[in-house]
């Protein structure tokens, strides 16, 4: 089954799954089956349904997966911000379905939502580059925006022969326009702290306590 899907390369991959909602789970399961090491699922809109994930990531495949669900744009943003402390060079995958969904809700003022979504896209991009890890994202409404920020797009369609995923090889048209501060790894490291590979490898499941708020 593995040959059916493109390999997820390092960098941000936007999966256009509007016509094939199961594609995300298939791709994740397929990827996890071929890798070892921690993987993170930063959830929005309750895409992380354990039963569905397990159906496509059988046996011990999903044992390395850790899930955290965001229910508001603010929580989503904080989870994204916390990722650099969590991922390490051993991380095999970061999944963030419905990446834009919670920022589009009424409880986040428009301009603030805009800035947070920009930052989210930038952090994921920097993160993918810094630890050389695939980041797989889907979008709920603003798919053009997410597509434009990603390194590549996979188009998923349900065909009578099964799920089909097309991934034209590109990576050059990365769009960084509106984001105010041109990001560099040192900038994010300064802001968010380092991704300590050794520590993360030893204790990848420590409780997250660094998030201020409630």
């Amino acid at each position, binding site marked *: 089954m593995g040959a059916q899907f493109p390999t997820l390369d390092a960098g941000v991959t936007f999966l256009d799954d509007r016509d094939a909602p199961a594609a995300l789970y298939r791709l994740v399961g397929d990827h996890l089956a071929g890798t070892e090491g921690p993987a993170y699922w930063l959830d929005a809109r309750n895409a992380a349904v354990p*039963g569905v994930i397990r159906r496509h990531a059988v046996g011990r495949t999903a044992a390395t997966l850790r899930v955290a669900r965001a229910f*508001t744009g603010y929580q989503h943003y904080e989870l994204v911000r916390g990722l650099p402390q*969590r991922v390490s060079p051993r991380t095999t995958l970061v999944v963030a379905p419905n990446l834009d969904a919670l920022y589009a809700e009424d409880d986040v003022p428009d*301009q*603030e939502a805009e800035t947070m979504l920009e930052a989210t896209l930038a952090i994921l991009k920097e993160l993918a580059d810094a630890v050389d890890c695939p980041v797989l994202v889907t979008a709920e409404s603003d798919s053009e925006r997410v597509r434009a920020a990603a390194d590549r797009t996979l188009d998923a369609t349900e065909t009578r022969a099964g799920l089909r995923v097309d991934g034209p090889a590109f990576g050059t048209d990365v769009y960084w326009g509106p984001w105010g501060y041109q990001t560099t790894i040192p900038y994010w490291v300064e802001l968010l702290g380092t991704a300590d590979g050794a520590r993360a490898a030893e204790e990848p499941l420590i409780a997250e306590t660094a998030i201020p708020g409630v």
Partner: protein
Amino acid sequence: MTITIDRRDGTPIRWVADGAGAEPIVDADYQPALYAAAREDRTRHLEWLADELAADPKVAGVTAERHYRTLAAEERSPTLRIDLDRLGEVRQVAREIRERERREHAPGTLSLYDVDLDPGFRYCLDTGCDPTPNRDLRTLSLSLPPAALAEGDLSNITLEGNRSEDEKSVRERIEADETVREVVERTLAEQDPDVLIVSSAELVSLLGKRGVDLGRRPGYRQLAGESTYVSYGQVGHSPARYAVPGRAIVDRSNSFLLDKSSMAGLEYFVERAGKPLQELARDSIGGVLTAIEIREARKRDVLAPAQKRQTERWKSLETLHSADRGGFSFQPETDNVGGERSSATPGAVHEDVHELDFASLYPNIIREHRVSPETVCCDCHDTADVPELGYSICDSVEGSFLGSVLGPLLDDRSELKRRRRACDGPTPELDAKIEAIKWVLVSCFGYQGYRHAKFGRIEVHEAINAFARECLLTAKEHVEAAGWRVVHGIVDSLWVTPDPDREQTPIREVAGAISDEIGITLEHESHFDWIAFCPRKRSSGAALMRYFGRWNDDAMEDNTDRYKLRGIEARQRSTTAFVERAQRDLLTVFDRERTPQPVCERLARQLGRLRSGAVATADLAITQRVSKHPETYNQATRGKAALERASELGVDRSPGQSVRYVIVDDDRSGPERVRLAFEGPETYDADFYADRLLRAAESVLAPLGWDREDIRQWLDGTRNTTLSSFE
């Protein structure tokens, strides 16, 4: 001491009861404050903010202070206290700070606190002002039917004060040549109420425009325009809000607690939450709970965050799966029902059943197990305290936050119930308080999982659930060991029947032993001669929640009704009076005969009457809560038609409000499909209501294994027989 807290030009005015009247006390020195803290407690961001605000005329001053940012924080964090000149400008200043932050910093660099507190509540929190009155409040109700309100016709207004003697009605007075204005003003002067309970806040502006001053000084103030919001998964409507000097306004159409309870319930929570009546009255249950939480947090020097930024912990799929399982549910033997056509499967009807309920299970778990945002998954313990999930619960602090919030409510409710038991005769005040507290207690668990709950936390929600499941499993094991068979169980209740092959320990004794072991009272709720559980609707994965049963004689002293109904049509708010009565009628037949055919015979008679046009349309009115504006409906629903009709008649309904209508022609779309109830329609769409009646009959017959198709076949057969017998 306080009746209401008003404000003029940003200055709070406290109205205090004074002899028979009330006096205003202007607090010109009061300055409201909000707080800012920086990510990772970096003080340079706070210094930057202090500089930014230096020239802001709204800001009276800034001070570096230290407070706890979270319930779990071990140390106080540096914060910037921002004092403002005027009450009522806090949200505006907060928005401006966000905008400044957005221009110069990464989002989330600053966190703001104590932003969205209602002004009167804020004043009471800050100054220690007691919002409870020190005398019995004098209330005056002002009511106007919606249609009259829409037309601005005040002649239908009714006034009713709790000091009223035998007054002439407004109408009588108007006929005696008094104007509405004179009548209202004279009533206000005679009764000098502290609280105006209005059927709609719009009455304030309507009367104001006629020159009537409802307050103790001239004038009225609009606090907010009407708006629609989404809260706690429900669309709500927030009507325009008004204030008048010296009197609290309670908008009956917009007060959940008043709706479920009474003034006594409101006054109880004014005291518990420390929030002035006018603001508390329009709070949702979540709002009441939040107010109590903010007050408790203040005691701990914890600030109330404007945006909740705390995130879920990273979890394995196993933990997520266990945590997401929801409440306990034990399925009775009804899942086979429905497969066998036209043959009654009596598995869903059980004889001689006792119902056992854990009293206030969730809040008691919160208190007993110290489940609270600052204790669950603490940093200092590595113990697996929460069943199934293995989360730790910190025991190194005294008095958990949520326990401190809910404990007094649990204790008060027990005490009030004890007093009620000691009373002979009606106890409306006690009933109202008990009911009001109940609503807050039943909501506290769900609210923990609500994404905008200020002090909510998903792991707390999960832990409560896990403890609850364990309680029910423990109880189930005990009753089974004592010779009983569990026929059904859900969330906090078990239904048990004697195991015919064994000897039983008396059920109350068993319940007592379980209560002792678990530390939460398992009450013997009731005894049924029989109870019938409806099978799950096929498409729905929801646990069984629909049942009905006949109380045993020993349970009848507490009940006026012979039957207990849950979840079936007669209990649903949207059910018409006709269908409700018809379903109850079918129930009595069910009870007497316990076979489907006689129930169907009764149903056929009801259908005949409906189709003959003999049912009064007042009994066919549907009450529906409006969830969106008519123009935003994609489909031509009945609700949309009702809204369109309301709009045509000039009684616009906003999302969150209710509309009452009768279906007159379900094949049409648009406003002609319905009539609003107050139009008094003379005809109705019999097919539509027949369908509703069939659904209600289906619920009654489902426990016997009959579904809609069986009922239809029976009805068709009867019709044919009946027809042929006339040939």
